[in-house]
Each structure stands twice: as C-alpha cells, then as structure tokens.
C-alpha cells in the first residue's frame, strides 16, 4: 500500500509557490478522476460544464459538433436537468476528425435543428471540442455561414479541454460566449449586472439589499433573465460586478464592446474580509453601505455554532462553492481546526496557504487529482465534519455538507447558510 501524497501547510509555505511539489501540479502527473473529483475535474458530469453553461442564454439551443464520446454524459444531463429539447448532436466520424470535412455540414445541420424546433430558439450555440482545437477550426467564420443560412444568431462555444490551463480556459471562454449577443444601448445609472455564475445568488444575499438601498433598481443576472428580451437588457448596465474570476474575460469583453466597466469581488468566508470588500465596492461606485447588522448577525451565528459544538476538526474539499484555502483559513480564525484540505494550490490562493501555515502549520494539503489518492486512507486526528462532496468521499460516514448547490452562496448570508447546514449535518439531518 502506497500513501496518498500530502504536504503540510508549513512545509508548503516555506517552499513558496514557485517550488510547489509536482504532485500538487496536475500538469506534471497523470490525473486521477476519482468519484470525489469527477464533477469539477470533468465539468458536465454534474453542475455547469461548458455544454450546460452555453445554454444560459434564454431560449437558446445547443448543437454539439464532436465525436460521440464528447456528448455522452449529456445523456444524463438531458434526462435529469430538463435539457432534452435543447441539445442536438452532429456526430463526427473518423474521416471528419482527420480532414475537417464536417465543417461544411454544420450550416445545414443548424438549419435543420432550427426548423425542427417547434419553439424557435433565440440562438444556436455550437459547441466544439478538442478535435477542432487541433484542427484549428475557425468557428467564428462557420458560425457566420450558419447565421446566413438559418437566419438565427449562432454563437460558438469552445469545449477545449486541451486548453484548460491557458489564459482563456473553457469555462472562461463560455462565459464570454454567453454575453456575446448583447448589443450596445443606452446605459442606465440604476442598472447593474452580477457576472460569474450560471445560477443566481441566494435570494437572501445581503448584496441585493445593499445595492438596492444605494439606488440600484435593476440588478440583473443571466440566470434570472426569463427570456431573450430580458437578457438583452443586460447591456443597459452601468457597471458589472464580477464575483467569479472566470467571468473576468467576459467583463473585459463587455467593457470593450459595450462600454460597461467592471468591479471584481471574491467570494469569502472570513467576515472581516467580507466587510472590507463591501466597503471597497461602495467606495468604487460612490455610495455608502451599512452592513453592520449583517456582520453582527453572522458573527453571532458563528459564535452560537461554536458554543454548541466546540472546536470541531474539519476536512475541506474543493468541489464546493468556496476557495478551499480561504474557507479553511476563515474557519481557523473562528477557532476551529482544519486538519486536511483537498485542493488545487494556485498563485491566487497561495496567500491563504501562508495564512493557514501561521495558524495551523500541520494542516495537510492533498491534491485530489494525484494518482496517489487512489490509496488514500484516513489517518491522524479524527475528522468531525467535512465540507465538500469530495472530502465526504474520503471520510465516508463523517457528517458532510456538500456545499455545492447551484444557487450561489455569497457574503454574510453565505456564511450563515454554511453554518446552518453544518448544524444540520452534525445533528444527523444531512449526509
């Protein structure tokens, strides 16, 4: 039996980001897509991958142009997520993938799909995959031909897994794609967009209240747009608020083409940092936010949870609505223990690794994707509760909060919801 590779937070902080061990770098080893990691390592298995995300434009349908293998898991999505009438497939054969002759068939296929739909789609998203990445397909040109023939907007989506570590990885590219049909129009000072996810923030998120009190009347998210007309109003926004860095490129594109500037915030679980971010946002848009009540309410919820359960020991995964390392650091500052983290260390979150090292130097950091995780066995200090479906996989039987719902937690309300779910899990009402 081999042991799963890990490094302590202290060791990693001392080495520095540049000397991150190769076992933590997915480009340096084979990738283990364990049941713990499938959903985020191969988006599409669950949640929003490129295919489902590409359908964020209200009323759109998707034509997946690929070998059959690329559309296989869509069988499940279609069945379980109600997308049966929105996915279509043009399957490539051996000759297509070598010669690229399929490109000439796409306009006709789009036309046939359009004519097939009883309710005419607002747009046809064409999703292409690794094959076309290697063939160097100019899908913009093909899309224009499709538009001419079918008379419907056609937008390319690039599901190029081969480029996932490039500047514009697939999930960033698809965010650009879904806002690409917006056209310039007069901007309204009382309108703004929240960009980042394909499902809305939870309704009780204080963000809505704070912005509304500051005079914003129209807060738009693509997933709340009921139809294409509503979607088109997103270009009326005075500014975009980016709450997921994968939407940054989309925001940059909207700044260039629509003149809408953007501000970026990060989802955090440290309430002091949440406060700081809100103050920065208020300052940036020239208003004042009073988040004192939300801050105190959240602080009280954390304290009550801690009084009830004491210094729990957490294991934190990465298939969750959080940055694993920021969440771990926040929990440590609240006085809990975190003995294991399964996550991907990057330049952006290394600052939290350093912060964790100061508070909990022995915290073990694993890479979900390392082949050595095949032999992972729990050891060391017993885990009381897990956050993340993947952490729960490693610690079967331990109370677990999946924390990966499609509705997005954010801000103080997100922190409170997390502790509510932890409470439920520890009472045996969850997993």
């Amino acid at each position, binding site marked *: 039996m*081999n042991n799963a590779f890990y490094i302590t937070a202290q060791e990693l902080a001392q080495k520095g980001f540049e000397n991150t061990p190769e076992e933590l770098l997915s480009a340096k080893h084979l990738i283990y897509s364990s049941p713990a990691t499938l959903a985020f390592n*191969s988006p599409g298995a669950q949640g929003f991958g490129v295919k489902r995300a590409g359908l964020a434009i209200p009323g759109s349908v998707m034509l997946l142009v690929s070998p059959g293998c690329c559309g296989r898991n869509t*069988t499940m999505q279609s069945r379980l997520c109600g997308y049966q009438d929105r996915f279509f497939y043009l399957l*490539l054969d051996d000759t297509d993938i070598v010669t690229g002759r399929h490109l000439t068939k796409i306009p006709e296929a789009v036309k046939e799909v359009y004519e097939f739909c009883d309710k005419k789609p607002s747009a046809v998203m064409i999703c292409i995959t*690794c094959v076309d990445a290697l063939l160097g397909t100019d899908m913009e040109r093909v899309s224009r031909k499709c538009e001419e023939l079918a008379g419907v907007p056609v937008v390319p989506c690039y599901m190029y897994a081969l480029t996932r570590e490039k500047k514009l990885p697939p999930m960033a590219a698809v965010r650009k794609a879904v806002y690409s049909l917006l056209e310039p129009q007069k901007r309204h000072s009382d309108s703004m967009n929240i960009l980042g996810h394909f499902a809305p923030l939870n309704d009780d998120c204080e963000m809505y209240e704070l912005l509304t009190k500051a005079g914003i009347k129209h807060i738009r998210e693509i997933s709340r747009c009921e139809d294409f007309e509503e979607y088109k109003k997103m270009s009326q926004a005075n500014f975009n608020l980016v709450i997921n860095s994968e939407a940054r490129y989309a925001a940059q594109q909207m700044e260039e083409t629509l003149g809408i500037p953007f501000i970026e915030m990060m989802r955090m679980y440290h309430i002091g940092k949440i406060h700081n971010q809100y103050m920065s946002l208020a300052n940036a848009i020239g208003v004042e936010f009073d988040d004192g009540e939300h801050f105190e309410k959240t602080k009280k919820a954390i304290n009550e949870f801690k009084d009830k359960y004491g210094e729990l020991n957490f294991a934190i995964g990465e298939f969750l609505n959080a940055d694993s390392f920021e969440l771990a650091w926040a929990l440590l500052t609240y006085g809990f223990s975190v003995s294991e983290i399964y996550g991907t260390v990057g330049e952006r979150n290394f600052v939290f690794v350093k912060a964790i090292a100061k508070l909990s130097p022995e915290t073990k950091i694993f890479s979900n994707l390392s082949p050595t995780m095949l032999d992972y066995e729990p050891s060391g200090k017993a885990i009381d509760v897990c956050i993340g479906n993947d952490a729960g996989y490693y610690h079967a039987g331990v109370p677990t909060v999946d924390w990966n719902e499609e509705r997005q937690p954010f801000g103080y309300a997100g922190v409170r919801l997390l502790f509510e779910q932890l409470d439920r899990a520890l009472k045996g009402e969850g997993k």
Partner: protein
Amino acid sequence: MKNLLKLLSPFAPDQSGAVGVLYELGGLVVICDAGGCAGNICGFDEPRWFTKKSAVFSAGLRDMDAILGRDDKLIEKTARAVGQVDVKFTAVVGTPVPAVIATDYRALKRMAENKTSLPAMCVDCTGTRLYDDGEERAYLELFKTFAIEKYETVRGKVGIIGCTPLATGYMTEKIFKGYFGDDAVCFGMGSGIDEIKRASECEKNIVVSTGGIKAAEYMKQQFGIPYETAFPVTDAMENALGHDLDGKKILVVHQQFAANKMRKMLEDRFSCTVDVGTFFKLFDEYKRDGDVYIPDEEKLVEKVLDGGYDAVIIDNICNRALKEFTGELIDLAHFAVSGRLDENGGQVCLL
C-alpha cells in the same frame, strides 16, 4: 441529415468499451485525453467506478503535448504513477486527440515497456466509434498480449467473454455464474489478469456480447478452443415477457446477443414473429432475415414505423424518438444506450 441526432443522445463510445474490458484486471489504464473523456468514462460509462477502485487515469494532455507529440512526457507520467500504485501492466486507451495526431501506439507500447518494465498494451480508440468496437479491440489485444501460453485444458472450465456493464447491464459476475455455472470465469469481471493468462485452460468460451467475438475467434485459432454465443435470462427480459405478445410482430432492439436471447424467450412463450435491431455490431452468422443494423435515429424511426410492428422492446430513452409509433413500447434497458443498469432495476447510475 446523417449523423445528426435531434432526439437521442450519443451512445457509449469505443474508449468506454475498452476501459470497461480492462477495468478489473489490475493494470494502470491511461486514457489518452485531456480530461473530458476520462470524466465521461468514469463518471458515466463505468458504474463500477463508484464501488470498486481501479487505477484508471487521464493522461491530462494539453494542446502543446498533442501538437508536439510529446509521447515521452506521457510515458514519464505513466512510469511515475507505476511507482506510486500497485499495478501489473499498463494500458493506453486512445481518444479523439491521439486519433487526430496519429499517435504511434506500437511505439508507445514499446516505450512504456522499456520505461516501466511491465507488460504494456494500447487500444486504438477514436471516440467516434461505438463501445463494442472498443471492447472488441481491447479483448483482442488483451488475449494477444497475455494469453500466450498453452495450459492444460481444465475439464468443465468455461470462459465468458463480453461481460461488461455496458453490454450486459451487470457490474458483477453473479448472474453469469448463476446461468453458466460456478466454474465459469468471466474475463474482466470478478477475475484478474491471471485468468486471462490462463485462458487457454478453458474447454469452451461463451461470448455474451458482440465485442467478444474476435477474441473468441482468436482463441479458437490459437488454442483450438471452441466458442458459442449466449446470454443469460435477466429480470428485465422476464418483465418483458409479462406483456401479452401472442400473435404480435415484435422488434427487439439491444446488442445482438442479448436481443437474440430475448427473441428466443419470446418465441418460446408466445406465438409471435420477432426481428432484432441493433445500433451496434450485427454479425451475419447470428442474424436472421429481417434483423437490421440501425445506424441512427432516422433509421430507427423508419424501421419501427415501416416494419409493421405491434410492439417494440427497446431502452425507454428511445421512446421520445418513437412518438409516432402507435404500438406498444416495452422497456429493455441497455447501459450503453441510456446509462441504466439492469442490476439496479434500470436506474441511472449516478455519482
């Protein structure tokens, strides 16, 4: 338009079939992809992924690896993993990426053997073909690589080729042993690579799915082991017999050998006429007049509507393509079509 699916989703591809054959054999299986194929295979087409660990990994290819043909990097990663997990051989399974760049699998095999000192094999899959093609290639390569020694024949020992969840809807060998006898060995299901090595001990092989025929033929030529085709009686088949099908004309759609078994059961129970249709391989030796290969959803609709059938026994995921059919649609799950296992009562296998 040919190859345009408007009502059905793609079926399990060859790479899933190949991995399904190798899954339980104790090797290190490298899916030569960027990550998405491995996710599809493990997350959807391999139900054992959630109950039985196996060293199946993605190569994690990136664009420059493909463009520059960095096979040495892949072998480096493979050798490193061999040092980290206990495995008896390595296997590389192809996907569209190596198909586009024309990866030299023979060279890859040699490089892997030299670097790891373990036996190696490669299965040339492209992602454009169907699961039984991948199974066929994997079984054949497996027996050619490992079943090289002639062992003394063990009286009564039967080898079952083609037991995979994709083809049969079962994840364990129980149903096959129950049907074919406890002495039967299901290659790749409940048995490891040693049974493949000793495959020449078998007195007879039974092929339960179309992907196994070529390997059985190879074993016949190499070691003189005869083979036949068969399929066990499953709960889903018994359920289909619960319908009143007397005097009816019926179409059964599944993989050929499961469909043939269903036909036999129907004919034994009812006075009826039965044709077999399949989206997968259709061997002339095992078909009758009226049996048909169905290449796509258009042909399915055409066959069902124009065939004069009173009933169609088919995976119910296909029902939405058959809305205009006025006869009876009876469910017979096929995992490679819908991801529904017979073993769990026809439920979709989920994370």
